[in-house]
C-alpha cells in the first residue's frame, strides 16, 4: 500500500507540472485560438532569467517574481512583433513562427548560459530532511508549493475568464475576432494579453520546477509534449480541465508504467498518447472542452 501511495505521489508531482504548463497553453488558446509550441522554451528561458536575477544577488522570491514580470512583458513583445503581423487567421504561419521561436530560445539559452546544468534554489526548505511523512512516503515542500501556486493561478484564471468583462472579451475574441471588433473590443490588445498571461504563467512554472529538474536548455522539452496532451485531453478552452487532465496523466502514466509489465519506463510516454487518442475518439473537444456549435 505504501508503495502504491508513493507511486501516486510521484505521478502527482509530475502531473502538476504537466497541468501547469498546459494552463499556459490554454491561456494563449483562449485568447487567440493559437497553439504556442514555444511555450516550454519560453518557460525555460524565463527560468534562466530567474537564475540570472538570483545570481546578481536578488532573493529567490524576488527573482521568481521578477522573471514572471519579464515573461509577462516578453509575451506581449512576441505577440506584437512576431504574431500580430501575420494576421489572426494565419494559423499555420503562426505555428511555424512558434517553432522558430522554440529553436531560437533553445539555442540562445545555450549560448548565454552554456550547456552545463545549473542549480536553482527552491523557494522553500528543500534539504533531504525537509519533508512531511505520509504513509511511508515523503511529501516534499517544493512540489507542495508548486501544487498550491497552481491552484491559486488556476482559480484566478478561471475567475478572469468566467466572471470578468475582460475574460468575456477574451472569449469573444477567440471565438470570432471580426464580430468582437465590431462590438468595440480591442482585439489586438486582447491577443497581446493572452500571450502575456501565458508567458507569465510559463515563467512561473519554469522557475518553480527548476530546483527539481536543474536548469538546462532541455528541461522543458518533454513537459511540453505532456502539457499539449493534457490541454487536448482536458479541453483547450478549459483551464481547470487542462490542469486536471495533466494531473491524471501524470498519475496514470506512473501507475501503468509501474504495474503493467510490458509498459515499464520505456513506454510511459506512449501511455499518455494512447489515453489521449482514446479520449479524442470519444470526445474530440476533450473532457471539459466546449463543443463548437455552428448555426446553419
Amino acid at each position, binding site marked *: 500500500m505504501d508503495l502504491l501511495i508513493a507511486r501516486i505521489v510521484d505521478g502527482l508531482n509530475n502531473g502538476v507540472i504537466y497541468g501547469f504548463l498546459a494552463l499556459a497553453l490554454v491561456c494563449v488558446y483562449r485568447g487567440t485560438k493559437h497553439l504556442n509550441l514555444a511555450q516550454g522554451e519560453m518557460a525555460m528561458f524565463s527560468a534562466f532569467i530567474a537564475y540570472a536575477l538570483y545570481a546578481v544577488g536578488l532573493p529567490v522570491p524576488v527573482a521568481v517574481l521578477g522573471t514572471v514580470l519579464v515573461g509577462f512583458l516578453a509575451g506581449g513583445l512576441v505577440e506584437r512583433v512576431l504574431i500580430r503581423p501575420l494576421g489572426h487567421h494565419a494559423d499555420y504561419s503562426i505555428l511555424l513562427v512558434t517553432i522558430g521561436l522554440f529553436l531560437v530560445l533553445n*539555442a540562445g*539559452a545555450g549560448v548565454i*548560459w552554456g550547456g552545463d546544468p545549473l*542549480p536553482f534554489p527552491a523557494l522553500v526548505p528543500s534539504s533531504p530532511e525537509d519533508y512531511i511523512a505520509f504513509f511511508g512516503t515523503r511529501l516534499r515542500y517544493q512540489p507542495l508549493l508548486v501544487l498550491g501556486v497552481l491552484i491559486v493561478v488556476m482559480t484566478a484564471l478561471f475567475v478572469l475568464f468566467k466572471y470578468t468583462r475582460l475574460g468575456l472579451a477574451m472569449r469573444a475574441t477567440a471565438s470570432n475576432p471580426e464580430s468582437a471588433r465590431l462590438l468595440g473590443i480591442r482585439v489586438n490588445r486582447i491577443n497581446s494579453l493572452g500571450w502575456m498571461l501565458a508567458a507569465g504563467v510559463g515563467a512561473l512554472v519554469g522557475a518553480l520546477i527548476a530546483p527539481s529538474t536543474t536548469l538546462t536548455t*532541455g528541461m522543458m*522539452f*518533454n513537459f511540453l509534449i505532456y502539457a499539449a496532451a493534457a490541454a487536448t485531453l482536458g479541453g483547450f478552452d478549459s483551464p481547470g480541465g487542462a490542469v486536471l487532465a495533466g494531473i491524471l496523466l501524470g498519475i496514470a502514466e506512473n501507475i501503468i508504467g509501474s504495474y503493467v509489465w510490458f509498459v515499464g519506463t520505456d513506454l510511459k510516454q506512449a501511455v499518455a498518447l494512447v489515453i489521449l487518442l482514446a479520449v479524442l475518439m470519444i470526445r474530440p473537444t476533450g473532457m471539459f472542452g466546449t463543443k463548437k456549435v455552428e448555426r446553419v
Partner: protein
Amino acid sequence: MSKRTPLVALAATLATLAIAGCGAAPGSTEGGSSSDNPAAAAAAQGLGIDLAACPGDVTTVFGPQEKVGLTLPLTGGPASAFATLGPGALAAFEQANATADLPTKFELVQKDDQFQPDKTLAAAQGLIQQDGVVGFSGVTGTANALAIRDLLKEDCIPALGLPAGGTVINDPAYPGIVQTTVPFTLDARVWVEDVNRRFPDGTGIATFIGNTESGKDYTADIAKWMERTGSKSRIVATESIEATDAAAPSSAITTMRNSGAQVLFAAPTGAQCVSMMTEMANQGWKPITYLTTNCASTAFFSAAGPAGEGVLTVQAFKDVNSPRFKNDPDVQAVRAAMEKYSPSADPDNTTAYGGFTYASVFLEAAREAAKSDLGLSRLGLIVAGRHLDFHPPMFIDGVDFTTDGLEDMVPVEAGELNPWSVAEGGFVQGTLYDFEGQLTD
C-alpha cells in the same frame, strides 16, 4: 599518319604527366597501389585493410597544407554541451601548426551535425567531397560515428580521437576509427570489479540506464563483466529513462529503493545525473552509487550539491575545475594554449579541454606517421593511430592512450574510481583500475 598525330600524342603525354603530378603530392615518395609499396601492403594487411579497395592516394604523403574534419553539434539542443569541443580542438591544431613540429599544417574544418546521425553523414560527405579533408579529428557521439563509418571505410579515411564511448566503436572491421574517451565497457568493468571487491559474497544491484545507444552498451557490458568475473551479485531492479526526460526520476528511484538494492549502476544522460542524485537524497535512498563517466565533472556534481556526496565515477581525464587539478602544470599549459591559439575557447569549460585532448590524439598519430616508413599519409595515420602509446597531458597519471593493432583496440583501459566530496568541492583520488589490453573482445 596525319600531321596532327604528333600534337595529339604530345597533348596526351602532357595530360598523363599532369594527372600523375596531381596524384602525387610534392616531395612524395609514396603512392600507387600496394604492389609497388611493400611496407604499405604489410601495414594494411596487419589491420585487415584491403588497399586495392581504397582510393589510390591513400598512401600519398600529405602536402604542406591539408584539411582535417570535425563533426559536432553547433546548433540545436546538444550544442550547448558539445560545441565547446571545437574551440578546444582548434587550439591543439593551431598550436601544432605554430610550433612547426609536423611537415604538414592542418586546417581544422568544423561542420554542424546537430548531434543527429543522418546529419553527421551529410556533414561528413561534405567534408570529404567538398572540403577534401584527409581525416577526421573527431566525430561526436557513438551513433554519429556509426552513421559514417562505412563512408570512412570506403574512402580509407582515418577518424582519430573520437569523443564517443560506445563499445561498438572498437570494431576490427573499421580499424581507421579510433576512440579516445573512456569507453563504457571500462566503466562497467570497474563498477563490477569494485562491487566484487566490496561484496565478495554478492549483493543486489539496481541499474538506472538511459534509453539510448550508450545505454544499450552499458546494459550489455554490465552483464558481460558480471558473468566473466564470476560475480555473485545479481541485478534486482532495472529502470530506464528517456534521453529527453527532464522530470525528476522519482518513480524509478521509488522502484529501485523498494527493490532493496545496496548498489546502483547509473548511466542516465546529462542533467539527469543531477536530478537522479537529488531525487535519491530526497527519498533518503543511499546505495553505493556508480555513475557514468559522462557525468564525471565538477559542473554536474556542483549542481547536485550535498546529494553527490560519495557518488563514484570513473575518471581518466583531469577535471580542470576540481581543486586537485586546478594548478596542475599540464592543465595550465593547455589553458595557456587555448588562450593563445583559440581565444573563443572557455578556459573553465571541461569539454573544451576534451576537444584539445581528442585533437592531440590525431596530432600524435600524425607525428608517429611522419616518422614511419609510410609517411604522413592517410594509411600512415590509420596505422599510427592503431599503434599509439602515449600519455595525453590531460589524462590522469597512470592512464595512457595505448593501442596495438587489432590485438588491443580499446585505447583507454584504465581509470580512477573517484568519490565526490562536498567538503573538498571535487573528486577525491580513489583506486586506479588498470585493465590494459584486457578490454578488447
